[in-house]
């Protein structure tokens, strides 16, 4: 089982995504770049300061690549043009989603995760999006070397860290 947020884990997530979408009849055509920003919130041991940032490219529904950016590394080094979707939220929420403890749709509906981009496409391909989210949430057996969520009680200012980000 890969450790969370390692190259092996990203590869496993990518494979899980592609297995999931291969079951779908209708997939979005074209290429889309998705950026994910997981912001330190004082609780997750996996995001100590600032944020972990990821990029993923989806082509005709399948995940071509999935990589983490190094601190200070520009998105432009990997992407020509515009980021199509951005997901932003506190680290604990993303950790809990990856651990299968929190439903990503619930997290978005309660405003814990911000989603930006062409929401029409996202809604028109709801089955595809759902499949991506399920791959992230449930499909990969993950180890948590620094501890598995849920974490200890909330420390002050965790929500504020995201609000300011």
């Amino acid at each position, binding site marked *: 089982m890969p450790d969370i947020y390692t190259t092996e884990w990203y590869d496993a997530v990518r494979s899980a995504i592609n297995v999931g979408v291969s079951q779908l009849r209708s997939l979005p055509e074209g290429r889309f770049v998705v950026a994910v920003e997981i912001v330190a919130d004082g609780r997750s041991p996996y995001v100590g300061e600032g944020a972990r940032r990821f990029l993923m490219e989806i082509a005709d529904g399948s995940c071509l690549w999935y990589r983490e950016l190094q601190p200070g590394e520009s998105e432009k080094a990997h992407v020509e043009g515009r980021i199509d979707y951005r997901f932003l939220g506190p680290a604990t929420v993303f950790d809990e989603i990856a651990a299968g403890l929190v439903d990503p*749709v619930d997290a978005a*509906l*309660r405003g814990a995760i911000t989603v930006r981009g062409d929401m029409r496409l996202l*809604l*028109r391909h709801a089955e595809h999006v*759902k499949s991506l989210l399920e791959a992230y949430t449930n499909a990969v057996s993950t180890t948590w070397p620094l501890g598995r969520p849920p974490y200890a009680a909330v420390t002050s200012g965790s929500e504020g860290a995201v609000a300011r980000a």
Partner: protein
Amino acid sequence: MRDTCDAVVIGSGHNGLALGAYLARSGMEVVVLERRHEEGGGLCTEELTLPGFLHNVHANYHTFVDLAPPQADLDLADHGLEYVRPEVQMASIFDDGTALTVHTDLDKTCASIARFSEQDAETFRRLYTEAHGYVNLLLGTLMYQPPMSMKELTRALSVFGVEERSEFLSVKLRRETIDTFLDLHFTHPKVKAHLAFHGAVCGYANDVPGLAMSFPLLVGKIDNWRLCVGGSHRLAHVLWRDLAQHGGVLISDAEVARIAVDGGRAVGVVLADGTQISARRLVVSTIDVEQTFLRLLPDGSVPAELTSAVQSDLLHQPWSLFSVHLAMSEPPRYAAAAFDPDVDRAWVVNLGYASTEELDADWRAVRSGRLPGVCRPNAAVNTLFDPSDAPEGGFTGLLRQIAPYAVGDGGPSAWDEMGHWYGRRCIEAWRRFAPNVGDGTILDWTPYTPADITRKLPNMVRGDWMMGEVSLANMLDRRPLPALAQYRTPVEGLYLAGSTQHPHGFITFAPAYNALQVIADDLGLEAWWRDV
């Protein structure tokens, strides 16, 4: 005057100015044309009563400023735009001396509701908390994107299982009225009346089928009412400033007589004085659909069936607003302050609607061309929150009453005879709740009737301040007509970006922002602006 540019924008309301500024920042030479003597359209602020008393003639309540993309994209705060969000946002004052107040502090709002019904207070807390979580996500999806169909939308909600996750969102809401929603979840008539009143001030009548779909979102923004410091016109001014700083030109007193079409493509405009302005890339109309298609475009520019649909199928709000603007020497002191002192600090005040049935009866009356049986206007005193809008010691007052555009057989011109009489009735209604409002404290006042709305701003057809009915039949990809809902027109290079378009009027900027996305796609503009 510039005679050739890249983009001509017809109309300098907030949508026209914002779109002009976006295009100018995208490197285009932009000309925005305004029929009136100044920019702003519905953002006009004028000294309607006495010198120094600044009255917001049309738009007074701005509820989307924090979500609307131009705020950040166009650096409006840097240009001097400032808003106040009053702590006591709204109040309903009832005939029996009780009152309900909505605060920026949820606990205080719930405490106020609990004085009528503890159960309703808990329901409101759950509804607000749920809606507050998804309001920005859903408004970003529904408002700041070119519209989807209701079918696509409900299908997606079903796939994501939203109905199972929510106490309040349901696919069934697309067929229900706000009244039905309120009856399903709330118990106390006054609580329901206040929530319905809030919807009405937003333009959502509580008895129209389908509008329940939007109600949780309205509640999610119920504490987000903001006042533009210096008057609503300040917003128009900062938009103009941004346009100008990026090379755009605003021309006032420039009535467009005709859109020039060559080979099926919009290539410019001709002004009423004969001046021709050529547009290399696009022409945008932000005025009403009727003028655009029936007056400005040459005959034969669009298919006959579209012309016919514009003539017969457009839906306008079947109700309008009668306003009274007042210059006062003191603010109202409500008798209901004995019950809840916060009513004297409330911004938007419902004077008397105590049940949804009372509102329903008035909707029926107004839609059939009659005045409401009992005058129950809403009141706002902006000076309580922005002292700059009146001379020292003075206060501006605003009363608004739902009213028909055409009264009985007299049509809209009947208002010319009735305006002062009905204005006095509205003031008397205010005095019933605030005894100090009267000859001793009112320095001057003037009525502003539904007929005045259309005379001043002809694009608000038949007093329709939302520039199109807010109803299921005129929503999303059906507004203003299915063939025009995606901001494009059959005339190449001619776009629609006014409040006639999805989502509707109000200071959302969404028509301009959404049209911008379509124009960017068509013209290959690089999107530098932020996603919602």
